[in-house]
């Protein structure tokens, strides 16, 4: 069965600091990878996705993620965070052919002004 691990449960950063949130998955085959974000009081929404091709994926609001197949990782990065990035971030994986996503436990990011 596929599973997703997010090792950072709560991250506190100051504005302009760099961000990297870890995500590792356990599935040996071809996968689709996602980061979703939930801003306070808002719906869970897609931040970026990887299906194939360039392993460095650009998303909205300056976020990017790199798929490293050998490490089973899909870490999320942003060079300089803003207060408005305060949110909960979820990594998700889907093995090709499966119908539904498996989500990690989420990382709560708090950006202090």
């Amino acid at each position, binding site marked *: 069965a596929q599973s*997703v691990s*997010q090792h950072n*449960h709560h991250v506190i950063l100051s504005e302009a600091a760099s961000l990297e949130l870890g995500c590792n998955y356990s599935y040996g085959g071809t996968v*689709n990878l*996602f980061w*979703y974000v939930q801003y306070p009081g808002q*719906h*869970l*929404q*897609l931040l970026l*996705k990887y*299906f*194939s091709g360039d392993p460095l994926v650009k998303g909205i609001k300056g976020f990017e993620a790199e798929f490293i197949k050998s490490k089973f990782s899909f870490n999320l990065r942003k060079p300089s965070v803003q207060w408005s990035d305060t949110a909960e971030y*979820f990594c*998700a994986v*889907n093995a*090709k*052919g499966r*119908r*539904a*996503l*498996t*989500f*990690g*436990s*989420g990382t709560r990011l708090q950006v202090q002004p």
Partner: protein
Amino acid sequence: SQTIHQWPATLVQPVGSPLSLECTVEGTSNPNLYWYRQAAGRGLQLLFYSVGIGQISSEVPQNLSASRPQDRQFILSSKKLLLSDSGFYLCAWSIPGPGSGANVLTFGAGSRLTVL
């Protein structure tokens, strides 16, 4: 454009009472539909998904059930709630088909259930 509605937004129920959460999608046909539960510190747990009317797949055995009586309606039910059923329930939809696009989920606003 497509929209997804969930109700009720908040629900407080006693142990042993029944449950019905509803989800409807507008602006698309034959969507894949999903119920997830979000518990604090545990991420999103897939409960059920459906690829068509009357077609329900259960991921986790528990005292919840799901039904899809119409193409764009997905209902989560329980006959007798347990304390452990408390949580935040999210409905989601995706485009139909086995392609990668079917993995991109759009979520509703969620229903917060507290069982006392």
